[in-house]
């Protein structure tokens, strides 16, 4: 038997390196010990960036993203939120205003941005929010970064927008966003609605959690 999928529901408790993660089909992790919500690659402001260049993408795209964040906050009541980079897609546009409002609304929650390659806003922009910008975040066995780094700790990163390809008989197939946990490193899927995805090549020893129709699907190599 290899890679046969197991349906796990909308969220799934995942014991990992003596820590407890709740993986959520809304593309987030709740980390019990750290009381934090981890999300990556929101790419807010991407729609605005496109509009600026004459491609009419509705603002509602990112409003949906923020609404999804709200429901995650309600569900887990985290003390902090760790944004694993690429929070904002481009230079400042009106969608940043939406985010400022959102951020201040959740002032009771610590907000940390682990800076990603897309995060090119100036300090002043962040000062209007509750966001603290850091290069990485470490607690217990984990080192959280935007892009994958070499480390002795277990590295969890975003950046690649991972997805996995599945195949069945009769030429059936699917491509699903996923979490990937390997021996030394893990990847989490892109949160943003207006983002693409990139197929990963899982190894036999990896644990993969794919997301389909609001369900987590466990896949073992």
């Amino acid at each position, binding site marked *: 038997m*290899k*890679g*046969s*999928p197991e*349906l796990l529901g909308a969220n799934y408790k995942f014991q990992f390196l003596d820590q407890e993660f709740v993986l959520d089909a809304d593309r987030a992790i709740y980390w019990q010990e750290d009381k934090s919500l981890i999300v990556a690659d929101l790419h807010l402001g*991407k729609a*605005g*960036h*496109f*509009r*600026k*260049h*004459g*491609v*009419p*993408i*509705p*603002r*509602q*795209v990112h409003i949906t993203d923020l609404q999804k964040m709200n429901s995650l906050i309600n569900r887990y009541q985290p003390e902090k939120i760790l944004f694993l980079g690429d929070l904002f*897609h*481009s230079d400042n*546009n*009106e969608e940043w205003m939406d985010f400022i409002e959102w951020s201040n609304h959740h002032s009771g929650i610590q907000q940390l941005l682990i800076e990603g390659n*897309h995060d090119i806003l100036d300090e002043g922009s962040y000062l209007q929010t509750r966001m603290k910008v850091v290069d990485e975040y470490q607690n217990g066995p984990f080192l959280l970064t935007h892009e994958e780094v070499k480390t002795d700790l277990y590295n969890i990163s975003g950046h690649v927008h991972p997805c*996995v*390809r*599945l*195949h*069945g*008989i*009769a*030429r*059936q*197939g*699917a491509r*699903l966003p996923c979490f990937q946990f390997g021996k030394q490193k893990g990847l989490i899927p892109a949160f943003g*609605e*207006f*983002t*693409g995805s990139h197929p990963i*090549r*899982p*190894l*036999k020893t990896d644990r*993969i959690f*794919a997301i*389909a*129709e609001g*369900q987590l*699907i466990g*896949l073992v*190599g």
Partner: protein
Amino acid sequence: MDDVLKPAYNWFKKKGWKPFPFQEEAWNAYLNGKSGLLNAPTGSGKTYALWIPTILEFLRDHQPEEITPEVRVLWVTPLRALAKDIQRAMQEVCDDLDLRWEVGLRTGDTTTSQRQSQKKKAPQALVITPESIHVLLSQSDYPNFFKNLRAIIVDEWHEILGTKRGVATELAISRLKALNGSQLKIWGISATIGNLPQAKRVLLGEDYHKESVTVRADIDKEVLIESVLPDEVEKFPWTGHLGTKLLPKIIPIVNRSRTTLLFTNTRSQTELWYQAILKFAPELSGVIAMHHGSMDNDIRGWVEDALHAEKLKLVVCTSSLDLGVDFRPVDTVIQVGGPKGISRFFQRAGRSGHQPGAVSKIYFVPTHSLELVEGAALRESIQEKQFESRKPLEKSLDVLIQYLVTLAVSGGFKPLQILEELQTTYSYRRLTAQEWQWCLEFITTGGKTLGQYDEFAKVYNDDGIYKIINKKAATKHKLSIGTIVGDPALKVRFMTGGYVGTIEESFISRLNPGDTFWFAGKNLEFVRIKDLTVLVKKSSKKSGLTPQWMGGRLPLSSMLADKIREKFEQAVEGNYADIEMHTIKPILDLQAKWSDIPSRKNLLIEKTKTRFGYHIFIYPFEGMFVHEVLGGVVALRISRIQPITFSISMNDYGFELLSDQEIPIEEALESDLFNEENLFQDIQESINMTEMAQRKFRDVATIAGLIFQGYPGKGIRAKHLQASSGILFKVFEEYDKENLLIRQSMEEVLTLQVEHSRLLEAMRRINDQKIVLKETIKPTPFAFPILVDMFRRQNLTSEQLSDRIAKMQMQLERAANKQS
């Protein structure tokens, strides 16, 4: 009048020629101020029929030395490769007549300095592509540049008609008409197609076509078709497999001829055949060349020159050599694979035997045995003088949006004025007020859902004039005018320098450095991609992959499809008079033994099981595009019986539904699977459930400027603006349901791909047929090509995704290239 024509007669006399009656007819019509359509094949002297009267008009109205720098004639050609030859021929006439006209070239290849000098001192005539007219329309001084036009002559109109380039041509003409008034004449030149009157109306527009004329060359040429027959037919025809096996019979044909053109249907086939021929007949090396649209222009130009000079014995080519000037040395044409249409085949045959009274001979080489039926069908159709129509497109809003932004770039436009002009075009004659309003909103505010956001900066309504102020947006637009739609193409270059051609990104993305592939007849090793350029070096390996270029594969025309059904009907009746039908009799016998032969009276459905899953094969013989839509509808209707997932494949003869569970076809047939009721709702629904509309949207979005392909040489800078059409489609579908571009994509599936009427006809025909359901122990000879070819595939499901996934497996990284 005779005095006016005198220079032309003198010129013909000096050349030792005599004008054909159709040429004289065209001269007179033009000089009488008429617009019209000239129906003449390539190599008939059509250029002189319409170029000469534009000169005569000038000589009639002016002193020969009274030459001013103004463009009087636009000669529109579909292919930039052709432009040079035509320009040369046109310039020659002027030089011979001592007329100091300059014939300029304006295509995507024209250098910046040439463009600058054309701007400073306009040539009297421009040979131009439809895209380049639009590029000129994006320049602020265009009204001045074009204000003295006397003629727009569109060459090879049959090739442009029915495409978005045709619509772009209509739009450009509508603008130029408004600038020039009645002094402007519009002429088209077209090979024979089924709807010549309509072709004329589309080109000339709703105003001009009423008073126009049609001139026919009436050069009747005899065409002989000979199929190259295999000695033994394979009972399980593997697509593309048979062709090169026939080389022992093809090479003698080449040897007997002066120069042979061997046409294949795709660029990949061209590469394959070139290799195969060189391997089989190495003595041809040096006198064999290949020619296809992805190759570097210079190499193509060299091939064309060598053809003229009779230095080549054989050229393997695609439709890239369908058009244009005549290659006199060519006396033999070979067609590999079904040409899918009668008109195209007839035009290709016409590339040989140009001496007056000579017979055009064309050899047909099937790529699988069953295809021989097309040889028989083609011969009969040509004898009966049946030609397909080229259906014009209507209301392509993506092209309209691109055009409006173009006008906004060059100083702006007044909506009412442009709307009036649009109403003279065939394509937009039925544009509704709402659609027009939507387009204006789309380019200014970005449409309803965007509403009041002022950030969306494309076109501003500046006191009634719609214009672009943002320089960046203007530049970006100018770069995307006439973007070639499709998979992004990358340039292929040697490490040491030297351009080879273009290749599609989807092919290269599958290669690893060190892999080799065939391109332009060379085996190349892939080194790396840098700045949107594929760097390669020569490889001495004997094996390599052949790139797949998308598109290029045409569906069977309904006329030819009908003929093919007739041929099978004759076979069922025991009539094997055609040599082709006689040859494939063993296949048909086996098919009849295992199953049945689909005919006009019966619709054959086969049911079988293999290790891949459960298959249903249905054979309507309606062509690939109709099968794609029909397959979707049939799958949808079956999927309502029980949750089930299908993979649908098709070819020109039929389609296949494949599932991992048994398909309840009997039950579906009992509940009237082919019912005409709700047909269009079901089509819409199945188009939504499969990815048909999404695939069309890719083109639509690119033309409308939603997908930006990047600044030349600055691939990286556009990166923040990259979004696949798939993501855009989903976003619009979810948040902007009223988006007319989504609707257009949907309609293009229905109109471009399958005319409503053709689908309904197919359904009616099926309903008049007796359904024959056969369960076979394995795929039959008819099923086999669909099974192995899998050209186009799509999926349709009524199962929950999670249920489907439960039956799937993850593909693991192969141990060989483990990640570190």
